[in-house]
């Protein structure tokens, strides 16, 4: 199942919004909602959604200053967090995206861009 969704993701054709031919502009999400996909595993998150949700989770962490959070920020170096805080952030990201990250992989997630890459490339990210 992971192989199949990885193959599908590789050959996926990007959806083009018809803003050039239509009079009223359509946002990206409404076109995706009207395009009904019959498999439960083909609807993957877009990168902007992933970035927005990851930054929201990091910003709502009580020990973090929300104005300093950017998509490239390192948890321990830039935000001044502890390694245990790192563990807590990774757990919060797991709960947000309904993922199950193995312990060894979760230990390596140190910065925002790593988290975004991992979640974006995960086939089961909700």
């Amino acid at each position, binding site marked *: 199942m992971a192989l199949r969704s990885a193959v599908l993701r590789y050959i996926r054709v990007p959806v083009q919004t018809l803003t050039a031919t239509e009079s009223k502009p359509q946002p990206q999400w409404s076109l995706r909602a009207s395009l009904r996909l019959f498999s439960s595993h083909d609807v993957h998150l877009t990168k902007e959604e992933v970035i927005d949700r990851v930054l929201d989770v990091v910003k709502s962490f009580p020990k973090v200053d929300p104005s300093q959070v950017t998509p490239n920020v390192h948890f321990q170096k830039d935000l001044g967090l502890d390694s245990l805080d*790192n563990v807590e952030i990774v757990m919060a990201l797991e709960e947000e995206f309904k993922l199950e990250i193995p312990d060894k992989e979760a230990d390596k997630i140190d910065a925002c861009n790593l988290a975004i890459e991992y979640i974006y490339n995960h086939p089961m990210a909700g």
Partner: protein
Amino acid sequence: MSGASTAAYLARRAAQKERVRILYRRALKDTLNWAVHRHLFYQDASDLREKFEAHKHVEDLDTIDKMIAEGEATYNKWRHPDPYIVPWAPGGSKFTRNPVPPSGIEIVYDYGRENND
């Protein structure tokens, strides 16, 4: 043991730090399994954090090893019998529910046509 920063000392400290992080992660998930209501979980999570923070400044390698072993023993004693696992992960309820059918199997659409038609 040597107090100087030799490579072996640093390597052992790094391995211990990784063990501590993994132990904290599992203990936090276990706390969430036991305390399902969120306000109880926050209380228990901050208690757990206090316990980890209390021994933050220990420097001796053997003491650290002993404390990690005690922590892992406590974790094993308190493990939840029915932990929450995400459905598609191993141990969850949806795991291998719809496996990929083996290749080479096809459906022949002959619509009941018989050979003497």
